[in-house]
């Protein structure tokens, strides 16, 4: 018995057929992928659709944001400031209120996204050089929508006042800015707009990659083709690699679509190295494919496989830092997040694109992804049923 298994192990190690059989599997999977129009369409359309949907939300230059105004001062300076804001097209004054409580209510209900409060002696204080405070409150739960408008306010008001204060009050202008802009963000933890598009790369890859391989084994079982596949001299590891490899290429295509859209359509910078980004995204795609393949060996049919992927997908989206700031979550949630591949990829992709990180800063996350890949593949091989028992 032990002698026989010894012999088997030996023949497996130096097996020249390994590549041939794996290649057979890869070719087969490619043809099937190409022929399954629905799947093929999903591969391309999911990233595009998500980008369009999210892209709408992350319109980096949103205009006509509903704004409430509370003025306790009615002088020409106040009017000049408000007119300038209005002319910028960023703000649309939809309500004139008298009570600060009213502002709170309207912000909370989402009726307005901004509120501007001009203090009682705004004009007089400016002319005296007292630097009064102009309060702008932003609903930053949608930071993407309010981001640019906020950054525009200071400039807008400055210019308006400069124009107005020309002449006798030149001296005041010279000490500009003559007022304090007090910015209140509701939801100070808010993400910046750039966080979303790179994150989207991770989300799309998680969803599509996992789904494709999750169906890989169960589909063969359901269609009855597993029976003859198992009767052939092909090994579980060859089947696994043969099924995962073609989808790495699909991940490549999705990556190309999303990164170019992020860069060219939404102006997300890529500060770090593009080859590094591609290499690590490929690693991430492979890790997800391996997870999907593992699910495929656990589930008994395609429906179960899909359910399993959703079960895994949700915490990935919620706890990875894609939706909520990672450090703002309770500790237990952070712990769960740490074992999800998307969490590490979020750090990698945001690190490379937005912070210009290199490999050294991210080696722990890279290691985590690699570990994930190896563990998932090992588990899949353990779970893979070589017989129909």
């Amino acid at each position, binding site marked *: 018995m032990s002698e026989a298994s010894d012999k088997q192990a030996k023949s497996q190690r130096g097996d020249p057929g390994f590549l041939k*059989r794996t290649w057979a599997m890869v070719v087969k999977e490619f043809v099937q992928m190409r022929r399954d129009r629905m799947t093929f369409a999903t591969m391309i359309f999911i990233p595009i659709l998500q980008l369009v949907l999210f892209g709408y939300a992350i319109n980096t230059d949103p205009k006509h944001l509903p704004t409430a105004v509370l003025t306790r001062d009615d002088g020409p300076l106040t009017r000049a400031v408000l007119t300038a804001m209005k002319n910028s097209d960023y703000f649309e004054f939809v309500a004139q209120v008298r009570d600060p409580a009213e502002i709170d209510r309207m912000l909370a209900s989402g009726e307005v996204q901004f509120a501007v409060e001009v203090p009682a002696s705004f004009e007089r204080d400016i002319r005296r050089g007292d630097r009064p405070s102009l309060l702008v409150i932003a609903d930053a739960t949608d930071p993407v929508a309010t981001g640019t408008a906020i950054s525009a306010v200071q400039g807008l008001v400055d210019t308006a006042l400069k124009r107005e204060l020309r002449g006798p009050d030149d001296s005041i202008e010279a000490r500009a800015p003559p007022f304090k802009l007090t910015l209140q963000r509701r939801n100070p933890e808010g993400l910046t707009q750039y966080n979303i598009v790179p994150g989207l790369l991770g989300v799309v890859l998680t969803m599509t990659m996992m789904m494709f391989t999750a169906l890989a084994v169960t589909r063969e079982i359901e269609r*009855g083709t597993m029976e003859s596949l198992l009767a052939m001299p092909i090994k579980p590891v060859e089947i696994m690699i043969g099924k995962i490899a073609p989808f790495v290429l699909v991940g490549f295509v999705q990556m190309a679509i999303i990164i170019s859209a992020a860069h060219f359509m939404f102006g997300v910078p890529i500060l770090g190295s593009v080859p590094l980004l591609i290499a690590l995204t490929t690693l991430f795609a492979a890790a997800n494919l391996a997870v999907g393949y593992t699910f495929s060996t656990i589930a008994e049919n395609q429906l179960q496989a899909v359910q399993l992927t959703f079960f895994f997908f949700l915490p990935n989206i919620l706890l990875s830092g894609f939706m909520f700031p990672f450090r703002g979550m309770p500790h237990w949630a952070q712990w769960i997040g740490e074992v999800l591949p998307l969490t590490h990829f979020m750090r990698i992709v945001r690190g490379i694109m937005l912070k210009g990180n290199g490999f050294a800063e991210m080696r722990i996350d890279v290691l985590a992804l690699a570990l994930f890949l190896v563990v998932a593949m090992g588990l899949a091989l353990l779970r893979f049923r070589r017989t*129909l028992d």
Partner: protein
Amino acid sequence: MKEIAIDVHGLTKSFGSRVVVRDLSLKVPKGEIYGFLGPNGSGKTTTLRMLCGLLTPDAGDGTCLGYDILTQQEEIKRHVGYMTQRFSLYADLSIRENLEFVARVYGVANPRRAAKAAIDRLGLSGRAEQLAGELSGGWKQRLALGACILPNPKLLLLDEPTAGVDPKARREFWDEIHGLAADGITVLVSTHYMDEAERCHELAYIAFGELLAKGTAAQVVGQSGLSTWIVSGPNLHGLAIELRNRDGIDMVAPFGAELHVSGRDSRALDAAVEAAKKEDGSHRWTRGEPSLEDVFILLMDSVKDNFAA
């Protein structure tokens, strides 16, 4: 002494508490077409799967082509062609792509050329690019057999290969199998059809997981100890109902315009027939030969009784 292709002893397999195959031993000589018969759910498919390494037997051992079925499944898979009962090639691959896949997995030297040759041999040259799923039942079977023999196996395990295939296609299929056997390939084929059983060199009959009879068709009939009378005349249906209740008559089966009346004990059967003749002289009685089907149905009934008891 002839070379033995399959030699297994005491194969037993259960799923849960249900014993599907019980203590089955089989010896199939090389180059022979060995028929594997039995009703649905009798354990034929399970046995074939144990032989090609798809299932692990709970008990028993043996060899296939000299390789141990418990430890050398890899070698067995390399040299055995297994044709599943249900079409199990890829419906969304074309005929050519399916065959090329098989050729590559088995490490055939030039997969494209091997697939092309198989397509020509199957007479499918014009349809190489057609999807396998779009083929009719008969062509699917031919393709499946073609895929099985492409890597030049030494043993074929065919699980009801002609179920649902028209008579002409069946005939061609069997001609092909005889051709393969003539080339030295051993074929173990399971079937429901009696005419196919008679085309086999040797038979094994299995019901409820137990091997009930084996040998050539003539041997199986001879071993059964069954005697048969053939009756013709008016109102055979009424006569059949009446005869079934008589002692000594185990089986009455209509065959066209005749009834086959059989019994295990020839003396008791003759007595019963004499009595029936006396009561109603309008029928013509002649001695006949029991058919394989008679023998198998009788075998099946006898085991069912054992199981009920």
